[in-house]
C-alpha cells in the first residue's frame, strides 16, 4: 500500500462546553477549556490519502488538487474562526480535537477520487493530537 500525507495549518478559537450543561458541569468535564471567554490553538492537520499511482504522473493525487481542496473545504472554513460561534457544525457538537478531526474527515471524504481518504490527524498542541479514518470503519 502507498499513502501520501500532507500537513496544513490553521488557527482557531473555541470554548469546550455544552450549552445544555451548567458551568460547573462543563468545568468538571472540560477543565480550563470551558472558560467562556475562549482560547485558541495553532492547529495542524495531516491528511493521508491512499490508492494507486497514476501511471502517467507517478502521483497518488496532484498536490495542486489536494491543496486546493483542503484550502476550500477545510482551511478557509476554520482558519481565523471562533469555531462554535461561527460554524453551524459546532453549534451542537463541542469543537474538541476529536470532533474537529471528524469535521475534516466529512469535508474531504469522497472528494479525492480516484484516490481514497485514509486518515486525518488533527494536532491541537505539541502534546496532543487525534487520528480518525478508515481504521475506524469509515469509508474514505
Amino acid at each position, binding site marked *: 500500500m*502507498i*499513502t*501520501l500525507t500532507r*500537513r496544513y495549518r490553521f488557527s482557531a478559537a473555541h470554548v469546550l462546553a455544552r450549552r445544555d450543561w451548567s458551568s460547573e458541569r462543563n468545568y468538571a468535564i472540560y477543565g480550563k477549556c470551558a472558560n467562556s471567554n475562549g482560547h485558541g490553538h495553532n492547529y495542524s492537520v495531516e491528511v493521508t490519502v491512499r490508492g494507486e499511482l497514476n501511471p502517467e*504522473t*507517478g*502521483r497518488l493525487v*496532484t*498536490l*495542486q488538487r489536494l491543496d486546493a481542496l483542503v484550502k476550500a473545504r477545510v482551511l478557509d472554513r476554520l482558519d481565523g474562526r471562533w469555531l462554535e460561534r461561527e460554524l453551524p457544525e459546532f453549534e451542537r457538537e463541542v469543537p474538541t480535537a476529536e470532533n474537529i478531526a471528524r469535521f475534516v474527515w466529512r469535508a474531504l471524504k469522497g472528494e479525492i477520487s480516484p484516490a481514497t481518504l485514509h486518515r486525518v490527524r488533527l494536532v491541537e498542541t505539541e502534546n496532543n493530537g487525534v487520528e480518525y479514518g478508515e481504521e475506524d470503519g469509515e469509508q474514505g
Partner: protein
Amino acid sequence: MLLTRRIDFSASHRVWRPDWDEERNRQVFGPGSAGAGHGHNYVLEVTLRGPVDEDTGMLIDLKQLKEVMESEIGGRFDHRNLNQDTPYFRDRVATAENFAGVIFDLLDAALPGGLLHRVRLSPTPDLSVEVVR
C-alpha cells in the same frame, strides 16, 4: 516487533514529463516542474518488522542496517540530481511516490528477506509518502 531507523540526505530533482509542454507540466506538477529543478533535505524512516533474536535481544544488527541504508540510499542519492545522476527516473516521473517505491525496492533487495516493512520518505516536513509491504 517494529524497528525504525532514520537517515537524511539532500538531493535535487525536477518533477516533470519531458513529453509534455511547460504549461501542462506546471498545471499538473506545480512549481516543482520548473526547468532548473530544485532540491530537498529528505528524511527517510525505514521500518523493519520481525521477531527478536532471543540470543541477542535484537531484531537486526543496527550496524548492518546502518550500512545498508548508507550504501543503498545515502551512497546513491545524497548530493545527487535524481533525474541526471541516477538511472531510476529515466522512464518515471521523479515524484515522492515513485522515489519511495524505488527506495523500498532497493532496501528490500539488500536486507534479509521479508524484514522490510515500511519506508516513509519526507521531502519536506509538510509532505511524506509511505510504502508499506
